[in-house]
């Protein structure tokens, strides 16, 4: 068996050293009858056989590489430079543990420090942590953090918040029977949440751009929150947008949570992704997740360590700010590398391309009969209304070998008002040819 280190001869010698007659003597504490069950599973296989099995499964999927592709809604197809995947596969990154021994983990620690800095910069916030599981779990942790800070319990959730984020927050709050108010679905992008804020409100969670693509200025909402002692939590699902638009920090956000997948992390059918989490410096001791901090070593040289672990479960146990332990280190590394390659100029240009192409497609689509673009202002994603149910349009597009978008009904099942709404995303990976194919296919289908 190729992954096992011991030979039969080794095993015999080792049993002898231990002084037991056979391997099952080491399992003597296992209750009678529970040892060595018969398992109805196949025996070991070589690489070639395993590869064949996965290749067969992969073939049953339609790869975004092979068709015009316009899906987004929380997960985005972007081009990842080859250097990213090469570097994250280096043994020293891939096969190391959490950097609890900083002397031999400076590589991991320094990139986490760089990651925290990048996340702070792009969100326009003062500090960021070393990553969470994904965008939705970041949002849920943000609500808990706001509760700790404000000592209030209620959360107000925008009607433009991705339903998966909304549900993840709600599920966690349900555990302690905390109240949350989900505002009505906000397709038009004109909700006024300030009326929902009361003196029990810990925070307002709003997504920008919204799940329907609407881009909004949150400054007045931030003021309203501040006036009532609530925190403003801004969620960003498409992080490349911050290459082009005013960051939440500049609009007055207290906590920014985001899905970092767009930078460096492949779609991978939904995971693993990387949750970003940034806030104000004054709240840092209420933050969840790992933090990497700068310090010096015995010789006075700059170095990095995991810090403020008095917040964490392995030290504080039931009093921890979160139960999170494993986070998303390697995805954070991919993010850091990709962002380093982009730099200021690259991120800006990437965002301009995304937006520019989205504007182009919006213009083409809006010329189709019965099709209307929903958001006034958007980045690379927008809802459109169709003259028929979006889900069946998407299915018809599949037959034409086009993955045309996400029907809103997939995210808001049962909401009749959204039945004809389709979410369409354009990134730098879409060619003009892709767009023309979508438009032509829609023309036929509608």
């Amino acid at each position: 068996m190729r992954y096992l280190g011991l030979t039969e001869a080794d095993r015999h010698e080792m049993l002898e050293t231990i002084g037991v007659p056979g391997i099952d003597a080491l399992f003597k504490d296992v209750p009678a009858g529970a040892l060595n069950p018969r398992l109805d599973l196949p025996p070991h296989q070589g690489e070639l056989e395993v590869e064949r099995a996965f290749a067969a499964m992969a073939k049953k999927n339609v790869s975004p590489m092979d068709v015009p592709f316009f899906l987004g809604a929380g997960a985005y197809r972007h081009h990842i430079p080859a250097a990213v995947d090469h570097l994250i596969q280096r043994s020293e990154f891939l096969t190391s543990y959490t950097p609890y021994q900083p002397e031999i983990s400076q590589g991991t620690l320094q990139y986490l420090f760089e990651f925290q800095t990048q996340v702070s910069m792009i969100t326009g916030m003062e500090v960021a942590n070393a990553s969470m599981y994904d965008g939705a779990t970041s949002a849920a942790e943000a609500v808990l953090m706001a509760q700790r800070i404000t000592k209030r319990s209620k959360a107000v959730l925008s009607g433009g918040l991705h339903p998966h984020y909304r549900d993840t927050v709600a599920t966690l709050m349900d555990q302690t029977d905390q109240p949350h108010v989900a505002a009505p679905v906000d397709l038009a992008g004109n909700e006024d949440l300030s009326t929902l804020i009361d003196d029990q409100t810990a925070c307002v969670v709003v997504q920008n751009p919204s799940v329907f693509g609407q881009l909004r200025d949150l400054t007045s909402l931030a003021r309203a929150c501040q006036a009532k002692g609530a925190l403003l939590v801004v969620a960003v699902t498409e992080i490349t947008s911050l290459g082009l638009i005013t960051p939440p920090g500049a609009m007055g956000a207290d906590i920014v949570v985001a899905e970092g997948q767009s930078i460096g992390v492949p779609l991978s059918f939904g995971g693993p992704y990387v949750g970003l989490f940034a806030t104000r410096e004054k709240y840092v001791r209420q933050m969840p997740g790992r933090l990497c901090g700068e310090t010096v070593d015995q010789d006075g040289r700059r170095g990095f360590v995991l810090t403020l672990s008095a917040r964490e479960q392995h030290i504080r146990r039931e009093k921890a700010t979160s139960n999170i332990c494993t986070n998303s280190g390697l995805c954070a590394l991919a993010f850091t590398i990709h962002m380093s390659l982009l730099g200021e100029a690259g991120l800006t240009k990437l965002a301009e391309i995304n937006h520019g192409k989205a504007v182009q497609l919006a213009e083409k689509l809006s010329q189709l009969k019965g099709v209307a673009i929903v958001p006034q202002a958007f980045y690379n994603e927008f809802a459109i209304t169709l003259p028929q149910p979006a889900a069946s349009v998407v299915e018809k597009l599949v037959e034409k070998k086009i993955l045309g978008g996400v029907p809103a009904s997939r995210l808001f099942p049962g909401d009749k008002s959204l039945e004809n709404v389709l979410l369409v995303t354009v990134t730098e990976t879409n060619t003009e040819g892709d767009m023309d194919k979508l438009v032509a296919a829609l023309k036929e289908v509608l």
Partner: protein
Amino acid sequence: MEEALIFEIGEDGRTGVDLPDAPNVKDRLGGLKRQGKIGLPGLSEPQVIRHFVRLSQKNYSIDAGLYPLGSCTMKHNPRLNEKMARLPGLGDVHPLQPVSTVQGALEVIDQLAGWLKTLTGMPAVAMSPAAGAHGELCGLMAIRAALKARGDVRKRILAPESAHGTNPATAALCGYTVDPIPATADGRVDLDALQAKLGPDVAAIMLTNPNTCGLFERDIKKVADMVHAAGAFFYCDGANFNAIVGKVRPGDLGIDAMHINLHKTFSTPHGGGGPGSGPVVLSDSLKDFVPVPYVVHGKNGLELVENGDAKSFGRMKSFHGQMGMFIRALAYMMSHGADGLKRVAEDSVLSANYVLASLKDVMSPSFEGPCMHEALFDDRFLKDTGVTTLDFAKAMIDEGYHPMTVYFPLVVHGAMLIEPTESESKDSVDAFVTTLRGLAEKAKAGGENVAMFQAAPQLTPRRRLDETRAARAPVLRWKPGSNGAPIDKAAAE
């Protein structure tokens, strides 16, 4: 070689990507275009590559040496699994594609679920939790939902003192108070104390088995019976599943829920701290109380239930789970097969007991053997030497080893928890034992050696770091002009 931060290396006028010009269109940003700069540095691709290659060279890794962290199961990560996770059609599919276009992806999830259910002897598994602690959360949510469904609100969770910190933290997140159960002198749950603590307000017990002392809870079936008799559920922390995979089915022991760290037992890489994946197997009594989404067999093949029925307790994360980790774990399982997985458990337990036997005369084992896949020592052998567990661990670094887990579990003094895993050869374990014997003897010999221990490590990119300073005035990001500690930029290039 010193390596500066990217922010210190970067300069305007350089880039690591080439992008075509953006389409020339009028923007539709509604006046929200960013004003001013973000502040990100510009680096060429060669600079980025060199920076991260050099950083990597400051890390220890399994690929370069034994990594005996107890409770972490730092085993070999096969490269085949990395390759499979990147196959076109698997690594690049979108979570919201029509299900007809992702039947293969759903098949991966379904197959992995099948393996997990068979290996644990449990009827159901919730796949979406993103890590072990997230799995614990899922398990407690399922328990809470089941209790709620029978109108039985309970408020207390029992957990041994030796539990992982995630156990109490998770319980607290679900609004439970945590009540510790003491251990017996031989490192197991004290049944009498448990009986005394059980009552109608106990929602569940959270037990790790094999436990964090590296021992199998030999009374586990009794524990299960007692807990069930009290109307409570039995949550098992599966962090140490590697010791029994293929060898013992938790379902045969009376367990109601257990998370499985795919990044431990099933070898998805730790990646410097994640991502992980923590599916939770569930007993009959919990199997309906699951999070969305989940995969079912439908009339058109596999289907994805994204909005559950009344019994589902909700959603735990953005999408369907850690697909990338599922692929790796399934490839690992298929490579090993039933025969290989059983061998994994046997060899990991064999190696740990071999370490225990080989060191018991010079270090101080906390408990009689046999242990499971990790061997626990405490610091009695260092008594009066002036050398602490920490010093001992740091001295190992200078010998070329990553230290074992130290100061955990909390139930013994100055704990050292050693888990060699089944990946290591006997030669490798022998060399490790030789090193530890040498260090133990040096510590006991005292004299000048003590200073060596206290000064260790000395051969590393950095020596011991000032953690107090880091925590007292936290510097959590670089800022322009804020070189906290002096670093010579030219020398760092």
